[in-house]
């Protein structure tokens, strides 16, 4: 078999359907600039128009008006589209917590949320936690108590930790441990993470 040709990627059944049913409508609705740009791979470009749907959301206080395929997770949208790579992919199954972000103030696993489900919502990622060069108290406490080693789970741990304090689940070491057990740290920094959270909760710091 010959090697696959990079240009030979047209003509699957979905493409054919789009061509037949929507091409004329699409051309009618598409500005002439877009048509010119689409000359080389016309059906590919048109397909994108239909596959992507509009999305408005606010990330770290910045408004984004974009369009996105409905199958894109919030995690992949943040990392691959917005290049906010502080949010990590550890399992893609909601089992490890590395992708934890805040959506409207609540912690969520961004790998279990499609980007389009967050229309109109406010997302905060690890990049939005510090105030310029001034670290959020939880970030400073993680450094002080060495609440990480490799650092990969750390953004998720910190986002969870901030939420854990805001939720009030900090009455004891064991309660903190329980409410932080959705965030796996394979380097094993758990006791240090709990120490950091205790310090922040005692300082009554709110994010």
């Amino acid at each position, binding site marked *: *078999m*010959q*090697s*696959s*040709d*990079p240009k030979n*990627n047209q*003509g*699957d059944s979905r493409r054919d359907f789009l061509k037949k049913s929507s091409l004329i409508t699409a051309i009618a609705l598409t500005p002439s600039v877009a048509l010119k740009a689409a000359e080389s791979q016309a059906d*590919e470009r048109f*397909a994108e128009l239909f*596959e992507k749907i509009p999305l408005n959301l606010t990330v770290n206080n910045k408004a984004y008006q974009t369009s996105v*395929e409905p199958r894109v997770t919030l995690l992949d949208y943040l*990392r691959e589209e917005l*290049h*906010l*790579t*502080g949010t*990590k*992919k*550890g*399992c*893609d*199954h909601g*089992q490890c917590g*590395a992708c934890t972000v805040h959506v409207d103030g609540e912690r969520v696993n961004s790998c279990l949320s499609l980007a389009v489900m967050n229309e109109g919502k406010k997302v905060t990622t690890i*990049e939005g*936690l*510090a105030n310029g060069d001034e*670290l959020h108290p939880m*970030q*400073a406490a*993680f*450094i*002080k108590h*060495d609440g*990480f*080693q*490799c*650092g*990969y*789970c*750390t*953004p998720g741990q910190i986002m969870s930790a901030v939420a854990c304090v805001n939720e009030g689940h900090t009455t004891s070491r064991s309660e*903190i*441990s*329980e409410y*932080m*057990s*959705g*965030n*796996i*740290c*394979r*380097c*094993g*920094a*758990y*006791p240090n993470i*709990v120490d950091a959270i205790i310090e922040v909760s005692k300082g009554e710091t709110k994010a």
Partner: protein
Amino acid sequence: MENRMLKDENDRVDGVFKVTGKAKYFAEYELPGLTYGVLVTSTITKGKITTLDTKAAEKAPGVISVLSHLNKPSAPGYEQDGGSPMKIFYTDKIFYNGQPIAMVVANTFERATYAASLVKATYAKEEFNTNFDKAVADSKSKKLQGQPDYKRGVENAYKTAEVKIEEKYHLPIETHNPMELHGIIADWRPNNQLTVYAKTQGVKATQGTIANVFKIPVENIQVNSEFVGGGFGMALRTWPVEIATVMASKHIGKPVKLVITRMQMFTMVGNRPAAIQTIGLGANKDGKLTGITHRAFGETSVYENFTEGVVNMAKFMYQCDNVNTQYTVVPVDLGVPIWMRGPGEATGAFALESAIDEMAHALDMDPLEFRIKNDPERDQQRSLPFSDKNIKEAYRVGAQKIGWNERKNKPGSLIDGQLKTGYGVSIGVFNANRGRASVKGILKADGSLVLQSATSDIGPGTGTGMTLIASKLMKIPADKITFELGDSSLPPAPSQGGSATLSTVGSAVNDVCVALKSTIAELAANSNMDATANFVDVLKKNNLPSIEIMKQSQAGKEREAYSMYSFSIHFVKVKVHSLTGVVKVDKIVSVGDSGTIVSPKTARSQMVGGAVGGVGMALTEESIIDHRYGRYINNNFADYHVPVNADIPEIEVHFINKPDPYINPMGAKGMGEIALIGFSAAVANAVFNATGKRIRSLPITPDKILADS
């Protein structure tokens, strides 16, 4: 790395990067025209691919190419004969279930993922075996590979001892599962220039492996790996899927990113191999060991051999004139294993340290007293003195901190309602390695120092340790020192493994600093300045913006005169629920005897992390295979249980913190492995002390504790 915002010189130099999301791991580099690779994997365990239909995938939206053995993307090293038969995309043979058989490259991750689902393979299946127990049972007549047998004194002397035990210990497959998924970004440019962003424990090793497969000069290959999201050994080699990604980039002329899935982390990037071990111990009635026999079978693959130091510890850790060991590996139809933290020594220590506890029980002795009684004065295996060993002091410190005097020697004595309390102890030991490394130091007139070496950091705090070594020697504040690593263009250093980085690279940092100081002293003398003049003034007076020195450092003849090891003592207190059989680790005290502690904060964290890994090894971790299909059935974080926060109690760490006089200029020895080695046995011993139940098969799950036998 930016460390100016740190409040304490012992804080991690890369801490600010890691807590703000600015630390960039391999998959996070933006490259123009980046494409995404997604793997198609075999659904059978052994046989041949008969057909592979890639047409639908090739026509799917956004797909640029589908790579497989059908189009054999160029890799000159794979076209030659010899080497491992696992030549990705150059073979139609299937060696294990989940083996990569094709890669779809598309312009988005989602498109590549969808298109990969359209690739259809048919196979000619062959009989296979993934059951290690069965493989060992069937291996009797076969010629097996492994390591040379060892014998000192009388073979199997335990059999004729006054008191003897002989027991068998089982370890399942464990999977490293660092939080960061494995993968690589490869960017092959015209004229055979290649840049990769890798998840590797050795940038120079990755560079060398790629050069060898693609037959291009190492100078053409730039490997970047500044931040690595954990490794635990699995990133100590360049895996076939990384080679596949380089092939893909070369084939399509664009950068390709591969990030494998968590499920794929179980099959194609190694594991801690399963092991079956038999220990025979003999002692006289006074509690002196008279014979140690340690025999082990380790799991390996059919296409590559993997061996490790499972029986090392038995040869020297206890004073005993009669010792014999045997280690062989038995292949199964699974992916090849690789060292996992503590590697073979952790496997061996579970068996040996459990057996030592069993012997103490047979003698009706306190296991701590029994260990102290058999503590070796010299290394009997090498017939050398130890360079530095403070085990007895470590036993004392740990025993006091765990509350060993509360322990009853009779199992099942401490019962509070439905909870039974037990205490366990074990020792961990690992060779105090020191390799060869080069470091360049650039001392600047602005008062700063830049140190460079092509070492890696998978999390232990390499940059922090190196900075502290230099800070102490040069009397420069830590925040004025930058240590650059994870870049193959820097002066060469070995891979980060075998607990050797601090000793190896740290020695070169030491040597560079000593050379910089003497150069400054010479310059000061030549320009009529005081010998104690500050280097900034000396450089300014000499109109030098900076001076630059590179040093290579390696061990000398001291290693022929002394036996060098790092040691750890683990104390564990457990509570076992008598109705549910659940084991809760209640308290952990780990004592490290590994020379000078250079970086106290990160060293403590490393010991804590080893204990957490040890809790997983002891109580929950097991990669389970359905042997009918040869597939893992718990290949995700919901079913493969690594410890979570609620599983871990407070952990006390103590260090002896005395310099080893011979190992290196710092007197510091590695501790990444000893943090874990032996730990699982301390838990098993504590469970026995609590319940009277000896569990010789990890993990110690409730069903085993509740079982009748």
